């Protein structure tokens, strides 16, 4: 019996545990005390709404944010943001960041010995349209090494941050590419226990949206927590 007045818990197996020893950084940073149940009050039922004034031109075209073309495989990443009833989430803020085609982030703490690309920052954001659809033009990120264990390499991925209807629909995750042999070796990918749930983070090659002689497209739909009855923050004067 679901208590509608308590924040519901995730379906078992579909979300990572905080403490996941194969991912070493989780060991000193994950809580050990039991998590406390939270009543669903106005605070939990509402969330921020962002408008188009937050965005700038070319915010969702990561290949056009500098003077020249970035190096790498040009791709379109697109899909829909849906709620748990499969309905589109309109006006959802979707934020992305990623490594460049060489597997290097434009970030001061990334010491990987791979070249930076002066034409690629690797950051974007957009709002979903009336059908819940989003798109980004970018280059395919490279795999890169990290210090978790001997010869550890992250599979190619794009970081996604999403806001849906209500603060509890907030999601930060990573989108992966189909057929990447590094996925089964990656503790972060494998932190999600359920195999089908892991596969839902893998995008699909989309030849219908690919453009001949120009770019390949990958399609990825994201389901956020919450249902159609979750109100957005009410507007008022």
């Amino acid at each position, binding site marked *: 019996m679901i208590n509608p007045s308590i924040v519901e818990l995730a379906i078992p197996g579909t979300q990572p545990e*905080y403490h996941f020893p194969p991912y070493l950084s*989780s060991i000193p*940073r994950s809580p050990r005390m039991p*998590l406390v149940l939270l009543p669903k009050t106005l605070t939990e039922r509402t969330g921020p709404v962002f408008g*188009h004034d937050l965005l700038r031109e070319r915010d969702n075209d990561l290949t056009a944010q500098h003077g020249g073309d970035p190096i790498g495989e040009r791709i379109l990443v697109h899909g829909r943001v849906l709620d748990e009833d499969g309905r589109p989430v309109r006006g959802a803020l979707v934020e992305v960041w990623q490594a460049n085609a060489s597997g290097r982030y434009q970030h001061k703490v990334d010491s990987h010995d791979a070249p930076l690309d002066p034409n690629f920052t*690797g950051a974007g954001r957009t709002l979903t349209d009336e059908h819940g659809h989003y798109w980004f033009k970018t280059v395919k990120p490279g795999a890169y090494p990290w210090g978790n264990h001997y010869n550890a390499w992250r599979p190619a991925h794009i970081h996604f941050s999403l806001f849906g209807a209500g603060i509890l629909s907030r999601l930060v995750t990573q989108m992966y590419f189909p057929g990447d042999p590094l996925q089964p070796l990656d503790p972060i990918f494998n932190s999600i226990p359920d195999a089908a749930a892991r596969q839902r983070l893998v995008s699909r090659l989309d030849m219908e949206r690919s453009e001949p002689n120009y770019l390949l497209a990958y399609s990825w739909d994201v389901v956020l927590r919450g249902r159609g009855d979750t109100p957005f923050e009410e507007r008022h004067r």
Partner: protein
Amino acid sequence: MSGDSVQIPAGSQTVGPYFRIGLDYLIERTPALTLETGGVIEIRGRVSDRDGSPVPDAMLEFWSASKVGDKLGGDGEAGVFPAGFRRTATDADGNFSIVMARPAPVGPGVERAHAPHMLVLVFARGLLRHLVTRVYFADEQANQGDPVLTAIPQERRATLIARPDESRANVYRWDVILQGTGETVFFAW
């Protein structure tokens, strides 16, 4: 997929160490408030781990459903930045700060019993899923009757309460301890 089909929410993955590339822009594009404006508070704190070490790559998001800040943030007009929301990230020493409207009690009805508070989401490298907590204010009488706060064991309650900074008006101190002694209360979701 056209409605009426039950969907399973996507799994979370860590924000990782490089999120500032993609997420700092929102901090930069947030309308600035100053403490000189009435009804504005600052919360300063530090995020630390099991060993008491600073967490220099954490992001925190604060959400208040109370409407008191609308006139400050311009909320209520389509496309204007939501007054009840702020994002911040920790510096090299694990410190963070947010400046936003002081939340009012949220209502109506039974929720009037809730003391002013904000929901706080904590993201960091090492957190495969973000943490959910709340922050209250030590100088609010209503804390004594708040149903969320009073349901938490007495000895852990203080981890959710920001304390006034004696040296500066409208500035509060609130630390987040991810694990170990004084571990912050986090909620299940």
